[in-house]
């Protein structure tokens, strides 16, 4: 028995297995890389077509597209307001609760406002609003468009001379971008107010005027510009990716769930990368 064990440990692994395993892994990795490269290229082309449609057909068919944009803002923004207010409330309590107690211990409670601005305004606010919209409206977007594609409604639009990108994608891009911007503003306001409420309830030695003074002192004008840019780009990216996965490829009905999962994954990754870009910009200013 001992001999068998020692033989097993010392015997060389058969050449075939050694040769096959890395090659299979390399092939798999290669396929993944090529797949990602193709997706990025197609997505880039789709984004250019969409922005082209926004630029060239902005005023076209207003009576039809404006109600659709309003509907998107209702679906992705107004309907999510209660949820975003709840998250803002929790976020304010958690951040002020945790940071103020820590800062008080080291006598640095004057930095509460700065922490609030850094964490909520610059980072978590836009990201949470984007992820919430992705989960509630972005996934639904893929299902709607994927089903429309699978049932031939897109060809029906084309047969009527209607540009599917202008009719189906542009209202979603504008609606989602505006919604994420609006929701982020509400989230930040609610988080700031709930932080103040927590400070008041916990008898933190910080008056409302101190608190708002710290916030005002920490906020730069660039914060407002970058917040708008970040939230609008999150909205545009989520709308583009979910529309791309629903529309741009021929789908059968049974492909729609897989396309939805793909769109959610890609949106999270791209939003994360965009967030990193904005973080670098924040660090540079």
């Amino acid at each position, binding site marked *: 028995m001992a001999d068998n064990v020692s033989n097993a440990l010392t015997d060389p692994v058969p050449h075939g297995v050694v040769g096959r395993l890395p090659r299979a892994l390399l092939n798999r990795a290669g396929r993944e890389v090529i797949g990602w490269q193709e997706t990025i290229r197609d997505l880039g082309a789709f984004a250019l077509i969409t922005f082209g449609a926004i630029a060239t057909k902005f005023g*076209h*068919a*207003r*009576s*039809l597209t404006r109600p659709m944009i309003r509907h998107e803002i209702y679906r992705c923004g107004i309907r999510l307001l209660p949820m975003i207010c709840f998250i803002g409330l929790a976020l304010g309590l958690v951040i002020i609760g945790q940071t103020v107690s820590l800062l008080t211990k080291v006598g640095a409670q004057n930095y509460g406002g700065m922490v609030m601005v850094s964490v909520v305004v610059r980072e978590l606010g836009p990201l949470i609003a984007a992820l919430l919209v992705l989960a509630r409206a972005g996934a639904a977007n893929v299902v709607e468009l994927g*089903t*429309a594609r699978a*049932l*031939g*409604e897109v*060809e*029906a*639009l*084309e*047969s*009527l*001379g*209607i*540009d599917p990108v202008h*009719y189906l994608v542009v209202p979603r891009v504008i609606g989602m971008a505006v919604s994420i911007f609006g929701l982020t503003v509400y989230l930040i306001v609610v988080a700031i107010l709930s932080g103040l409420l927590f400070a008041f309830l916990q008898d933190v030695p910080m008056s409302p005027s101190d608190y708002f003074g710290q916030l005002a002192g920490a906020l730069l004008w660039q914060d407002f510009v970058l917040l708008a840019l970040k939230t609008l780009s999150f909205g545009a990216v989520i709308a583009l990716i979910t529309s791309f996965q629903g529309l741009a490829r*021929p789908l059968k009905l049974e492909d729609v769930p897989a396309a939805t999962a793909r769109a959610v994954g890609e949106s999270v990754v791209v939003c994360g990368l965009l967030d990193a870009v904005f973080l670098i910009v924040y660090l540079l200013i």
Partner: protein
Amino acid sequence: MPDASFNLAEPLVELVDVTAALPEADDAPEARGVSWSIEPGQFWAIGGLPAAGESCLLPTAAGLMRPTAGVVRLFGRAIASDTGETELLETRRRIGLVFSNGGRLFRDQSVLGNITIPLRYHFDLPLDEAESRTEALVEMLGLKPWLHRSAITLPLVWQQRTALARALALQPEVLFLDRPLSALDFSHRGWWLEFLGELAAGLDGWPPVTVVVGGDSMKPWLGVASNFACLDEGRWETVADPAASDHDARDVTRRFTRKKN
């Protein structure tokens, strides 16, 4: 019945040695070597089994799909593989296309919404104005009782009629219909044959519309259509005398003898 030879004007649609196939399916049937000229005032009936390649030929002739080989000319302009989509969208406004099996209506719209979409999009009309413009069409097609119902909750025969109204909303010069008689009962078939015949001849206040219908058989269109052709397993054949043609019999035989994979 419209006269097949009354107009010698330039063809509205011309196909020269065209091969048409669905791009996403390698094993899908294709129509091969189609040379076909559709002239104003004609009423074409195309016969062929469901897998004969007709489902890709009609969208190709209507400019919805690009041909895999050959040349398609719409109103004298060739559609090449690099023809811009915007240019094609403009051309498609002059062509109506009614899909089979309920006509691919927009599920999130009512019957009225479906019919008025082309007018609202191309002429930027508010809904009430688009509704008043389509009133006569809705009346003519008997769709008034269904107007505010969700389109996909309608019985299939009325969905098909809604698709016809949607395709006619822009008053196209050529109308393509893919299997319009499938899934229709006897009374509805009669209505469609009569209406399309009148449409080709010129309805009240409408110029004559050139009509192309596809279907399993050419026989229902005898006495209505002026020109006949069939797709025999993807091969295009014009039929001079459809009453004497054995095409339907061949198709019936093929239907029963075709082996299932």
